[in-house]
């Protein structure tokens, strides 16, 4: 089945939104407005946006410290995201967790752990509960290439396979776990080949191509929803920036390599397709950019003008009940 034109446009808008947010976050980080870490996924947006566009509103996602694009693609608001990065009271988590750990239950973003791999068994638990409740909901767990070496990854995927859980593992293979190139350690042709070890379908997809990602995601989501169990999807992609804003990303890769990947930019690629199919015009594209720029100005203004959490907030929310 082909991806509908409406979906392609939707994915394009989501990708633009993710990139605009992160590019602005980098600017604000450099200005000193963001106190902690910022790990961008610039270059990787096709995976987040295509997968989330194929989900239903009541489906769940869990993500990682590099999760802005996943969370925004699932429907999170720019202003509350930016305010969380700014450590403000109006952020998604009252400014108590920052960029690496944003959860947004209002759009079913249930987990965002900076402990690599930890989200995988948790996603399986969400999927198990959906199955026990007979909810036809699917859970997507985003993870990185390095994650597939953790114990939690293997425990989680093993459990998902054992119980045919409606969960999809989406590996954003951006080539490097900080500086560690996946091919230097993995004795398989691709990361998706790990799925064979669990007897579940695994597909390796061009993660710079939103259309291919959407098709792979749709197949996996349909299978999960129909009770066919988990799927592992590897999206082959690249992060344009370093690991975090403190890493220039120059010690373990060449300029040429970065430029080579940038030529495959997922946003430019989908834009060309949309132009070719007459689904968008240059003028409409300029309008999209202008609108996003205004929305981000507003998000930054909102974050800047928002109050910090009260000091008492530091010790609140450890327990639900008054102990």
């Amino acid at each position, binding site marked *: 089945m082909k991806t509908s034109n409406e979906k392609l446009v939707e994915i394009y808008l989501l990708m633009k939104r993710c990139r605009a947010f992160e590019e602005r976050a980098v600017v604000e980080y450099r200005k000193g407005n963001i106190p902690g870490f910022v790990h961008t996924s610039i270059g990787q947006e096709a995976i987040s946006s295509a997968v989330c566009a194929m989900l239903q509103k009541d489906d769940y996602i869990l993500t990682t410290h590099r999760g802005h694009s996943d969370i925004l693609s699932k429907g999170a608001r720019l202003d509350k995201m930016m305010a969380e990065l700014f450590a403000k009271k109006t952020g998604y988590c009252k400014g108590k*967790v920052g960029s690496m750990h944003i959860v947004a239950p209002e759009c079913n973003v249930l987990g965002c752990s900076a402990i690599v791999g930890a989200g995988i068994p948790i996603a399986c*638990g*969400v999927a198990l509960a959906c199955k026990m*409740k007979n909810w036809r909901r699917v859970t997507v767990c985003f993870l990185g290439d390095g994650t597939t070496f953790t114990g939690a990854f293997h425990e989680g995927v093993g459990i998902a396979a054992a119980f045919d859980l409606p969960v999809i593992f989406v590996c954003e293979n951006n080539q490097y776990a900080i500086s560690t190139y996946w091919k230097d350690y993995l004795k398989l042709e691709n990361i998706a080949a790990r799925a064979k070890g669990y007897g579940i379908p695994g597909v390796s997809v061009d993660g710079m191509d939103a259309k291919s990602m959407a098709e792979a995601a749709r197949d996996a989501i349909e299978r999960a929803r129909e009770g066919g169990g988990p799927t592992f999807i590897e999206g082959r992609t690249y992060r344009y920036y370093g690991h975090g804003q403190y890493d220039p990303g120059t010690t373990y890769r060449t300029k040429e390599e970065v430029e080579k990947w940038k030529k495959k930019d997922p946003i430019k690629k989908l834009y060309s397709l949309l132009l070719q199919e007459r689904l968008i015009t240059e003028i409409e594209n300029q309008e999209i950019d202008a609108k996003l720029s205004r929305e981000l100005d507003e998000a930054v203004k909102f974050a800047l003008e928002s109050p910090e959490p009260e000091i008492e907030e530091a010790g609140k929310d450890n327990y*639900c009940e008054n102990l």
Partner: protein
Amino acid sequence: MRELTYREAIREALREEMRRDESVFQLGEDIGRYGGTCKVTVGLIDEFGPDRIRDMPLSEAGIVGVALGAALIGMRPVAEIMYLDFTLIAADQIINQVAKTHYMSAGQLKAPLVIRTPQNCGISGAAQHSQSLEALYTHIPGLIVIFPSTPYDAKGLLKSAIRSDDPVLFIECRALYDRKGPVPEDEYLLPIGKADIKRQGKDVTVVAIARNIVQALEAAKILEREGIDIEVIDPRTMNPLDKDTIINSVKKTNKLVIVHDAWKTGGIGAEISASVAQDALDYMDAPIKRVATLDTCIPYNPKLEQYVLPKTENIVRAVKEIA
């Protein structure tokens, strides 16, 4: 009143809560047909079936992660981890994920799950099957830690733990599983975070945990013959710790002995001692004594193991030194 063993009381709590609330389910290794390594869940699969008494693969981090995920969307999982020592394999899930869920979501998410696990000392389990790790978990904000000493307390506290919206580490004492005690037929709950005075006395306060309560009550009989009247307090919950009950007792007796199977260094006795020194120093007529496991790995040889663990005679001696 009828008598049940500690094991039967725990099983009855599990059965009652599963009958009362469909969202309660159990997961763990060998808990179904096999009935659990310590035989606590025997027979439950016949009433509740394999979905709600779910046998899991050998994946401790997976089990706790799955429990957490299910809890995030409204289930009330009770996970069994075969031994307290094995919770260390799931320590990231317990400490970094479960305990921090409510805080890191700024109160948006809850983790109403229980992890049941037996402490196993005194049965030649050797150094990896005999540790008392309650203090380690008590150190972590966001996690309730319960460690009961009687069938009555175990049942009432486990029922409260299952109903709690906060995550609970419920430590069971293997040495007590076959011990009987009165348990009413009628349903009851016990408050989390409330100590119980197991024996009233006026001369020395003895705070003891789990099987050390049995030893402390034996010591009380011996000391009574020598004219020393000890008050025996069971905190029952390590976090939150009912310091008021302990301090009020010390204000009456002016002397304190603390007994636990955990090592002396960094054990819960250190926290109790510091609290008493801080809030009731003026009432103290003698140094605080701690009877604890020697700071060593626990040996397999029964004679050596008994040598390193607290015994009734150690309690008698410690009390007499300050009485």
